[in-house]
C-alpha cells in the first residue's frame, strides 16, 4: 500500500518539438490516490503531458512537483513512477518473471526475493501461471497484464498508463477496464491514464482533463465534462455523437432559432444577443410543432435511431429511442428540452452559466 501520497502539480508546462507547439502552458492538479484521465484526440498533448510527468520529456518551461517536491528535471528513475506503455514495451528476451522482476533487480532487491515478489504481483493480475513464458508466447491481453504487473511490483508513488487498452479487442477492453478500476482501488496509488476514448475516460476516471491542441480545455469529473462543458471546444468533442451546436438569437429569456421561440430557464450570468445553443442529440425530440428541420439521413444504431437533419443548413443530430424510420428529404419539427439547453458566448466561446 502507498503511504497516501502522490499529489501531482503541473504549472505552466510548455513543450515544443521543433516548430510544433505540443504543450501550451499546462496547469494541472491531481489529488493523491485519484484515478485521473487525460483525454483528447491524437496530437492534443495528452501523451506528452504523461511523458513529462514520467520524466521522459523535459519541458521547455514550467514546473512539476510531486508531494510538494520539485521534480521538473529529475531523472525518470528518481521519480518512483511506473508506466504501462501503449505497446507494453516488454523485454522480449526475458521471461514474464524476469520482466516483472526487472524493476526490483534495478532497485537492488536481493536476488533471492525477486521471484516471490514477481509472482505476488503477477497473481494480482492473474498471470502467475505464465511466469516462465516469454512475451512472444503470450496473447495481447496477457502481455498487457504482464506490463501491469511490472508496473505495480515496485509499489510506485504514481502509476501512469498510456492508452493501455487500445491494443486489445473490444470485448477484452471492456473486461480490462473494470479490472483496472478494481486494481486502482486495491493499490490506492495515484493513477494517470491517457486515452483518446471518451467512453473509457468517462467510465473509469474520478476526474479528467480534456486536451485540445496542446491546451487543457476543461478539468472536472466525468459528470462535469459531459453535463456542464465549459466551452464550445469541449461541447463539440465530448459525446458520441457530440452536442448539436446552433447559432441563435437571445431575446427576453428565450432563444430564437429559425424564427421559432424556445423558452429557457433563467441564467445567472448576462446573456449576449447572439449565442450558440448547445443540446445533446438525446435531448432533441420530434414534435408536431417546433423548429423545422430537413432530414438528410436516418441511421439505425440497433438500440436507437440517429436522425441527421439540417436546420437552416446547420447539421443537427437527433437520437430517437423508438425505431421510427423517417424518409430522407422529409421536413420534421424539432422540440428541445429547455432544461438541457446550454448557451455559449460565441465571442469568448465559454458556456453561460
Amino acid at each position, binding site marked *: 500500500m502507498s503511504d497516501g501520497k502522490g499529489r501531482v502539480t503541473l504549472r505552466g508546462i510548455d513543450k515544443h518539438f521543433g516548430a510544433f507547439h505540443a504543450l501550451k502552458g499546462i496547469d494541472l492538479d491531481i489529488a493523491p490516490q485519484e484515478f485521473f484521465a487525460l483525454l483528447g484526440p491524437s496530437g492534443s498533448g495528452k501523451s506528452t503531458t504523461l511523458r513529462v510527468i514520467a520524466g521522459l520529456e523535459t519541458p521547455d518551461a514550467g514546473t512539476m512537483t510531486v508531494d510538494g517536491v520539485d521534480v521538473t528535471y529529475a531523472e525518470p528513475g528518481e521519480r518512483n513512477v511506473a508506466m504501462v506503455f501503449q505497446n507494453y*514495451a516488454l523485454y522480449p528476451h526475458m521471461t514474464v518473471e524476469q520482466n516483472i522482476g526487472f524493476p526490483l533487480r534495478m532497485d537492488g532487491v536481493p536476488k533471492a526475493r525477486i521471484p516471490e515478489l514477481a509472482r505476488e504481483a503477477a497473481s494480482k493480475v492473474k498471470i502467475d501461471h505464465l511466469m516462465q513464458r516469454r512475451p512472444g508466447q503470450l496473447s495481447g491481453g496477457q502481455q498487457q497484464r504482464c506490463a501491469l504487473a511490472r508496473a505495480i511490483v515496485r509499489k510506485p508513488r504514481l502509476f501512469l498508463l498510456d492508452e493501455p487498452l487500445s491494443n486489445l479487442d473490444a470485448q477484452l477492453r471492456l473486461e480490462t477496464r473494470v479490472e483496472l478500476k478494481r486494481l486502482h482501488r486495491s493499490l490506492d496509488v495515484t493513477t494517470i491514464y491517457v486515452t483518446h476514448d471518451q467512453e473509457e475516460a468517462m467510465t473509469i476516471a474520478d476526474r479528467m482533463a480534456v486536451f485540445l491542441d496542446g491546451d487543457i480545455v476543461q478539468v472536472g469529473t466525468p459528470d462535469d465534462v459531459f453535463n456542464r462543458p465549459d466551452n464550445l471546444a469541449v461541447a463539440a468533442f465530448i459525446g458520441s455523437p457530440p452536442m448539436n451546436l446552433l447559432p441563435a438569437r437571445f431575446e427576453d429569456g428565450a432563444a430564437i432559432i429559425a424564427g421559432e421561440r424556445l423558452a429557457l430557464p433563467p441564467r445567472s450570468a448576462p446573456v449576449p444577443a447572439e449565442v450558440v445553443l448547445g443540446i445533446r442529440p438525446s435531448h432533441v425530440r420530434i414534435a408536431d410543432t417546433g423548429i423545422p428541420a430537413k432530414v438528410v439521413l436516418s441511421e439505425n444504431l440497433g438500440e436507437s435511431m440517429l436522425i441527421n437533419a439540417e436546420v437552416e443548413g446547420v447539421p443537427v443530430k437527433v437520437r430517437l429511442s423508438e425505431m421510427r424510420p423517417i424518409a430522407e428529404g422529409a421536413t420534421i419539427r424539432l422540440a428541445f428540452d429547455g432544461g438541457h439547453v446550454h448557451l455559449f458566448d460565441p465571442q469568448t466561446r465559454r458556456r453561460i452559466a
Partner: protein
Amino acid sequence: MARNPHQAARLRRGIVLYAVVGLLLFVWAFPIFWAVVVSLKSETEVLAYPPNIIFEPTVRNYRDALVGGFSILPSFATSFIISGLTTVLTIMLAVPCAYAFARLRLRGKKALGFYTLVTQMVPPVGLVIPYFLILNRVGWLDTYQGMVVVYLTFSLPFAIWLMVSYMEDIPCEMEEAAFLDKANRFQALWHVVLPQVRGGIAVTVIFVFLNAWNEFLFAVQLGGNDVRPVTVAMYNFVSVEQTLWAKLSAAALIAMLPMIIIGFAAQRQIVKGLTVGAVKGGGRR
C-alpha cells in the same frame, strides 16, 4: 498430355531459372574447383598442357604448405591474432558508437554519420602510402598494433553502420521503460538493448573477422617478416624463377578453410545481416 498451358509456362520458367542460376554458380565456383584440382596434382602435372583430366592425386602439397620449409602455419596464427584483435576492438567500440547514433540527440550527429559512411567510399589503395608513412614515423610498421589500428580504420565505420540499423529496430519505449525502472543508460544498454541485438553483433563479428582475414593490400605493404598474415604468406610459393602452383593452391585452400567453416555455420545470420533494414519496423526519433 494433360498439362495445361499455365503449368507448361511455369515449367519453362523453372528451367530458365535453373539454367541461369547454374551458369552463375559455375562461373563462381569454377576457380575454387580448379584450385582444388591443382592442389592435388604434382608441380609437373600442373604445367601439363592440355591439362590432364585423369591424374594420380597427392596430398604432398598440403603437407608442404603446412609443415614444409614455407609453412603457412605461423602466418595462420598471425592472421588469427590480427583478425581476432581487430574484431574484439571493433565490437567494443562500435556497440557504444552505434547506440549513440541510434538513440542520443547529439550535436553534429548527421555530419558524423555521413563521415562514417564516407570512409567506406575511399579507395583503400589511396590510403596505403599515407598509412605507410604514418606507421613508419611512429615505428609501428610490421607490428601487430600497427596492423590492427589500420584495420580498425575501415572495420569500425562498417561495424557502426551495420549495428545502427539493428539498434534502431528496437522500440525506444523499451529503454524508457527501463529508465523508469531505475536503470541508468548503461544498464538499459546492457540488460535491454544488447541481448536483443545479439544476432546483429554476431553478424558484425563475422563480417569484421572475414574482412580482416581476407585483407591483402595493407597486409602486404604494412606487414613484414615479423607480422605476416596468411594472405601474404601464400606468396612464399611465388618467386622470380618459378611459381609453385600446386602448393600455392593448397595454401590458399587452407587459408580459406576458417572462412568456409564460419560461412556455413553462420549462413543464416549473414543473410539476415545483409537484409536488415530492408523491412524496418521501429526506430524513429
